[in-house]
Structures are given as C-alpha cells and as structure tokens.
C-alpha cells in the first residue's frame, strides 16, 4: 500500500533503485546532514535494502485487498472521559530550554 501512495517512491522501488538526488531529498526531510561520502554510502546501502524488499513483489497478491495494518483488529476506542494530566514541571522535564512553563524553541516562521 505504501508504494502505491508515493509515485516517486514507487518508481524507484520497482526499479529497486534509489538515486543520489532522492537520498539528498529524504535527508533534507529528515533534517540529516550528509557528506558526499555519506550520500554515496547510503545510496548503496538503501538500494541493497530496497532490493531485498523487492522480493515481496514476487508474491502473488491477486485478490488480496489492501490493508493499512498487519493486525487483524478494528474499532479500538476509548470513551470520552478526561483523566489527570502530567504537571507542567513533569511535562517540561526533558526540555532543553524552557521559559514561563513553556518549551523554548527557535522561531521558525519569517514573514515578509
């Protein structure tokens, strides 16, 4: 199902191949800084992984409907009841920086 969703992914997967550009794009989305050597290395490694996954294509899935989940279970709900939360102190315990009981982060939006 995943491959069917992203056209770019699906092409590269069916070819069993991922190129440098795509590695760079995914690195950007993941906020990873890769050197030229890293890119070369990961292109090779990821291609090997994808080729292994391509084995799944050998399966005959004719007549098997798509699923989003491997567990055969549905309709798991909770009732709408409010339960106690953490204290602000606990919630912020792992924050590298805090101020006024808030998480302090670099500003992201620039207007104009």
């Amino acid at each position: 199902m995943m491959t069917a969703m992203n056209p770019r992914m699906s092409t590269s997967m069916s070819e069993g191949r991922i190129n440098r550009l795509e590695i760079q794009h995914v690195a950007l989305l993941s906020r990873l800084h890769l050197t030229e050597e890293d890119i070369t290395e990961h292109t090779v490694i990821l291609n090997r992984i994808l080729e292994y996954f391509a084995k799944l294509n050998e399966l005959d899935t004719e007549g098997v409907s798509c699923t989003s989940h491997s567990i055969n279970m549905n309709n798991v709900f909770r009732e709408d009841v409010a339960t106690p939360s953490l204290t602000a102190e606990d919630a912020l315990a792992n924050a590298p920086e805090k101020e006024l009981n808030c998480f302090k982060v670099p500003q992201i939006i620039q207007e104009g």
Partner: protein
Amino acid sequence: MKNEKRKMKNEKRKMKNEKRKTENEKRKNEEREMKMDLEPVIGIEIHTELSTKSKIFCGCSTKFGSSPNTQTCPVCLGMPGSLPVLNKTALEYTIRTALALHCEITEHTTFDRKNYYYPDLPKNYQISQNYACLGYNGWIEISSGKGVKRIGIHNVHLEEDAGKNIHPESGDSKEYSLVDLNRAGMPLIEIVSAPDMNGANDAMAYMTIMKNLLQYLEASDCRMQEGHLRFEVNISLKPKDSRRLGTRVEIKNLNSMKVALKSIEYEIERQKEVLESGGEVDQETRLWDEAAGITRTMRTKEFAQDYRYFPEPDLVEIHITPEWREEIRKHLPELQGQKRNRFISQYGLPEYDASILTGNKLLADYYEECVRIHSNPKTASNWIMTELLRELNQKEWEPDTCPVTSAHMGNLIKLMDEGVISGKIGKQVFSEMLDTGKMPGEIIRDKGLAQITSEDEISGIVEAVMKENEGTVEAIRGGRNKAMGFLVGEIMKKSRGKANPKLVNEILKKKIGV
C-alpha cells in the same frame, strides 16, 4: 518504410504543435481583452475543535484557558512508546457533521501520518486522514446574491490539533518562540469545500452557515476567541466565461470569519492588479498580516512541502457499519430549518422572527429559555430581535456571554406584563442590566422605577398638569380631542415615566369630562 512513417508522424506532430501554439496565443489575447471581467474562484477549509471533554487520542482535558503545559501526557507530548487510542465521541461527532453535510460515509476509514517539522508538533507528524477520509462528496446550500447556491463539500475528516506557539512581545522576541502543548491532540475536524464560491459574499455566507450548522450539531462551540474556528482559503481568478482555473494562492492563519473575509477581499484585489498589469500570480502560501491589513508571502525554514503521508501504524482500521451510521443519523440534533418551523408552530411566531432567532443556535436557546421563564413568545421575540441583538452585534458578544442573560430578559418581560414597569422603563432597566448585570427586580427596587398605580397619586399629577395647561383643557372640551395626547405626554413626563399609562388616560378623561 518505417523511417518514412516516423517522419510523417513527426511532421504531423509538428503541425499539431504549431496549431496549438497559435490557439494558445489566440486564447491569451482573448483573455487579455476580457481582463476586466475576472471572476474569483474560492475554496475554504474550515478547522474547528470538537467539543469533547478529552483529547482525541488520550485522556487529557480539553478545557480552554488553563495555564501552559498543564494538560499534557506522554501521548500528546509524543513520548516514545506511548500509544494513541481514538476517542469514540470525537469520531461520532465527525460522522454526525459529515452526515449533516450530505456526505457519503467511508465504511473502512483509517488515519495517516502527515510528516512535517514544526515546534508545536511534538511527534514531528500529525495524525490526520488522507487516504480514506470519513466523509466525501457532500454539499451545503448558501443564499447568494442570485438565490440559493449549492457549495460542494470535498471531504470531512478528523485529525489532531497542534500546540500553540507564543511569540513573546519583549526583548529578543525575534529569536525564539514559546510552545504550549495544551492544545496538542485536541480533536479537530476539517471540512474542505469545493472551489464553488465566486466572491467575498459567497465566502461569508458559507462561513456563517457552517458556523451555525456546527453549533446546531453540538459538535463544536465555534468560539472564535478560543480559536475554535480557523480558516484556510484558496483563491484564484479566471476570466468570467473561461472554465480553466487560474493559479491559486493559499492563505493561512485566519482565526476569525472577519479576518478571513478581509483577506479574501484583499487577495482578490491583489491578484486582479497583478493579472491586469500583465503579470502572473505565483502559486504560493500567504499569511494574513492583521496589523498591516494585507497578505504576505510566507517563508519558512522548511523546504519543499512533502508530507510523506503513510498509514498510522499505531491505530487500527475503523469500520463504520451502515447500522451505526444510520443510528447516528437518527439522533442528529434538531437543525436550523426544523427549529424554525417548530418556532412558528409552537410559539406562533411570524416566519421572519423564527428565521432570525434560529439564525444562531445560541440565540434560539436564549429565546426558549426566556419563554420558559415567562410565556410571552412574541414580546420575548421583539425584545431579543431589537434590544438584545443590537448590543450583541455592537459588542460582538455571543448570546451566552452577554451580561443580560435569558433569566434577566425573561424576568424583565414578566415584570412588564405584570404592570410593575412600563415598556419605556423596561428599556431603561435593560441598559442598567447591561452595565451592572443586576436582575431587573433589584434595579427597579434600587432606583424606584416601579410604576405608579395608585389612583390618588396619579390624580394629583393629572390635576397639576391640567392646571398648568388650562388652555389645552378648554380646547379639548371644545372638541379638539387630538390635544389629549399632549396632556398625557406631560403627565408621563411629570411622573418620570412611571405613571401607569392606562390609568392616566382613564383619570384624565374623567376629569376633563369627555
């Protein structure tokens, strides 16, 4: 032979391309000539928080206005190893909304991860719906300038809200933001319209009717101040008779209908100017800048938008059986049209009154509570439509945040009907209630506003006024009945509006002898 054929094919293709080129130019020229007649094409996304007691995937409270980061837990903080469990009420509210919007309900619906980096999104993804939204292909009718118009609803889906960024005012505020995650994980419904609106008026009618509908469905409070209703608008312009859509611009950050409307009006003019001066509209996201009253290009440190949606592995599929769906449909609350008809039949109201009172669910509730306290449906309707609505509109209050509550209003009408005060004094009491929030009985007592119903007291005032206006009295006795009104006015003035007008008339007539 093969080569020959290929050559011919190429020639043909070339000719076709040439033809297309000239057709394109022709069309462009035509468009330039028609440029004055540009028509906006608008689609609106509405986000509103559902009025559940707890968040969508955890038990944290959804109460508004608590101090920062006091309504969080490992699930909505995005702690590793925590698992979301769907709030059934949030799901049912969404189904209810989709049904009221005439949507088809997806039998097997799923959640997906929308991946992006933003400080108010603790997991670095938002749990939303992308591949199998709850509702599809609905519609709602708005009244536009040319009568009733049907606006398509592309889809209705359920997702979690993000936290809130606070930008500190002082010091090096440009350097950082503060994040409050109380809002992270609040259930959010998103309603995506088709691009079926063709101007600011259509958009306003759509937003108003949607707000009203959401309140009627009791799925959301739709309180703007609390950020319960947020909008994103897509706008493009196209020549009026063309079917081809222009380049569209998305405007985000619209936290009220008023702001959404202003941004639409601004953006239509901006794009018109760009197109009419021969330029091209860039496909981009813009933000509304309230202080400057303009839209601005949004630049973020993010790069290309690539959400890499994929099915949420922490949540299982939801199967909505036809039986469940119909059960929810059967229990849809009374909607505006039904309530309007009921107001006409139950309270004997004119259609006009019923339409205005049901134009806002909270106002309809206010009215019914008022009538429950004191049963005078038409007077209650008159007071609410004039005095109350004037104040609500002026002060931008909702009916249930006005200091004059339905209890104040019901009691005021009761006191008028019982003859304790006149209608005129009633207005004075009303404005006193607005200022102080005191109950009408208390105001009447404190200010000595109760009507004078003692015949002796009124007789005294009548005699005094008759003495001061002997000429008028003679004229009336001589047949000029019209002058009666003047005397009544003088008597009321002398009693500071408190004399019972009926008694005044009776006593005056007796004393003059007509």
